[in-house]
């Protein structure tokens, strides 16, 4: 099986059961033609250029999609879905989303990324900013404990399993705790499972190697 074909089937497998390859689930709109701002030619260009793929699963919504790397600036990679919903990652962690209705506007990865990637434990402060419904930023700050749990296998291909180090991040705030998980390989976050808004639930991203 060629690398390309394997990738396609992996994407199909990982996004199986989801309602489409977009994240907003606006299937009807796709049929009716792209709404403004979606810029389908960009996605065609990225696909043609075989831009790197990020597998995104909204675990609590039962949605999944494969996003293409659309750009990179200042250490932040921008990934776009077919419907131009975007995720932004820094050091393998989600730092922002756009188009999910309950977006993470910004987030400080701070010292967390280096602790996680190096598999050390520690305590960090994390600050998330979300829209509060009145077009102001709601700032949520958390104390987070970062604890390496141990080796864990994750699926990175149809038959491929990769042995990684799982690192848990448990964050507390009087309004509710969140827990994130990361799977680290060779000092790099390969897969992450983060929560930032209760409406969206857990978001899992896997950087295809």
């Amino acid at each position: 099986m060629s690398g390309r074909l394997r990738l396609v089937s992996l994407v199909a497998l990982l996004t199986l059961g989801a309602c489409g390859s977009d994240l907003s689930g606006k299937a009807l709109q796709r049929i009716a033609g792209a709404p403004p701002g979606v810029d389908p030619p960009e996605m065609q260009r990225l696909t043609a250029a075989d831009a790197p793929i990020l597998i995104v699963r909204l675990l609590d919504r039962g949605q999944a999609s494969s996003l293409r790397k659309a750009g990179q600036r200042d250490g932040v990679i921008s990934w776009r879905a077919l419907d131009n919903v975007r995720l932004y990652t820094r050091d393998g962690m989600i730092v922002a989303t756009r188009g999910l209705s309950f977006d993470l506007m910004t987030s400080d990865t701070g010292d967390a990324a280096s602790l996680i990637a190096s598999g050390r434990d520690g305590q960090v402060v994390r600050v998330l900013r979300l829209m509060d419904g009145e077009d102001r930023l709601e700032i949520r700050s958390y104390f987070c404990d970062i604890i390496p749990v141990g080796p864990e296998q994750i699926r990175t291909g149809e038959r491929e399993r990769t042995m990684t180090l799982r690192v848990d991040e448990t964050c507390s705030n009087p309004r509710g705790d969140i827990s994130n998980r990361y799977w680290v390989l060779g000092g790099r976050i390969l897969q992450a499972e983060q929560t930032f808004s209760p409406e969206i639930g857990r978001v899992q991203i896997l950087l295809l190697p």
Partner: protein
Amino acid sequence: MARLERTLFRMAGVGALATFCHGAGLPALAEDAGAQPGLSFYGVPGYVDMPSAFVLPDGTFAFSGNATVGDVRRGTMVFQITPRLTGVFRYSYLKDFLSNGDSLYDRSFDLRYQAISEDIGGWRPAVAIGLQDFGGTGIFGAEYVVASKHFGRAVTASAGIGWGRFGSYNGFTNPLSIFSDKFKDRPGFSGIEDTGQIGFDRFFRGDAAVFLGVDWQATDRLRLSLEYSSDAMTEEVARMGFEHRTPINVELEYTFRNGGRLGFAVLNGSTAALSYSITLDPGRPAAPSGREPAPPPVMTGSAEAAASWGLVPDQGRRAGLEAALKDQGIALDGLHLDGNTATVAVTNLRWSASAQFWGRTARVLSAELPAGVTTFRIRSHIRGMPVKEVVLTRQDLEELEYAPDGAWQAYVRADIQDAAGLPDPRLAPESALDFKLRPYLDPALFDPDNPLRLDVGAELRGEWSPLRGFYVTGAIKQKVFGNLDQSTRLSDSVLPHVRSDAPLYAKHSGPSIPYLTAEYFMRPAPDVYGRLSFGLLEPMFGGVSGEVLWAPQGKRYALGLELNYAVQRDFDGYGFQDYNIATGHLSGYLDFGGGFKGQVDVGRFLAGDWGTTVTMTRRFGNGFEVGAFFTITNVSFEDFGEGSFDKGITISLPLTWVTGQPTKDRGGYTIRPIQRDGGARLSVRNRLYGLVRDEADAANGDRWARFWR
């Protein structure tokens, strides 16, 4: 408490990490305790018929409806105006209530104030004072003072003293009569003509009585309420055959997963009743961050030399920028390059939040213009008027796109000024013609005979703009079905029938022209906006209207003057009647902060009456507006007729709030207990304050969380 906490976080602002963390350590009070109090059958926080002293969460609505076996039906809208002040509008139907055997459709208003807030952990109860039905027919008229307390998480209890209706069972001599004998007697209700007058001479007068209430949240879903009611239901017993067997009322309430609450009650041991209520928080739209696609990324720009673009770039170079902006719902009106500075004239066609419109414009400019262009002067226009200039640099955009506090930083670094009088980068406009066909709904809610009248049809709107700032706009609409024409209330007004002939207008069934106008908008001087309108201004009047608005940049106030000459249109809309009038207002606008806005209009109204309209509006950050107004003119309450003076409630919301899709469109409705001829104002489209306010607020920092959205 959650709200307070959020506010604290917001106030803590930027870069104050330690403060956030400290804030995060504040004790979290029980969020549910008292946050969603039970609602009484009058729709206000309370038990079955009796009120409690609790409040709804600040800024939320509660809508409730109930029906009793004896054919009393009520719909209530409650709005928590401030954390302590509650406003209530209620529409009631009482079958065969009137002495001539007719049923009564009644509109009533309450105001409640929580004078003392509850100390959840300690002993201090909440205490509230309420004026029920203070200005309607007075049929539900009652005043009360009530104290309420939580006992643990599941139980609340209240004790209160009531007057009027709530002082009618087991009443005793008014304790207030120690101050004055005036308090001993409550003047009766003198007739329909007095409706709408505030019953100052009745408040807290006559016998008083004590009421008690207790409820128990048995499970997450079930609540049981029990009360000792001080309402003897005197009128219902006398007029509707109601039986008052016991002062005890009980209710069982079930809360659905969606938050709706269904209640079943037994009233006074004789009558069963059902109720349903929902709450709505205008601060929680369907999609807080919107469903629109991601914005285009900030880019470093094209490799072309800025100089090669020239001062006024040619059509070929403009085309890419124009297409990219258009895809973002932004019209490009002009582009001018001077060294490393680009000045672009743009018009917002899509975004409810001006900051988002500016942000997306800046992103597109960063990608489409040569890298050597480092300063973007974004000149925004509304109806052809230059409004604001927002200056951003390429460096700021690049630094802040992913910065944690990028929204605030972008606002601080943006240089925003009034765009009037600056050199105009716009090209000669192309004559633009635009048509839109859409369905329309014309409701008439809560009229005195029918709670809901509605026309449904189609409307074709066309607009032609041959010159900058000049618009010829018209609409033609055709009703498909509806019952607005079935209103049989012919006007008995002694004033010129400037509004009360609405049913006659509604009887016209052919195509109608709600408006057909030529408008001209201008910026005669800095901080000054102007408008001239001519033609069929609104469904009932045509004529000419001129307005000047002085809205100084960065200030909380504005002043406007509007002068009109209006001629009344025929009922079929094709000609004019004999009635004409010079009318106009001096208007003052003040932003009190915290979302509260006031407006005062002083002048001459359509019926020739002179007077003042006072409007208070609470505007939520997302654009949702709830307001109330009243107009007092030199027309006597008697000449005004039913309702005594003009007043009402307005609700207006961006459609984005409902759908999450980006659009500038809004929907809304004004509820008036009754529309009469006194205090009626010409309904001109495109009044200036409403046109430019969003950008003015954005220039003061509103909604900048959307700059990077």
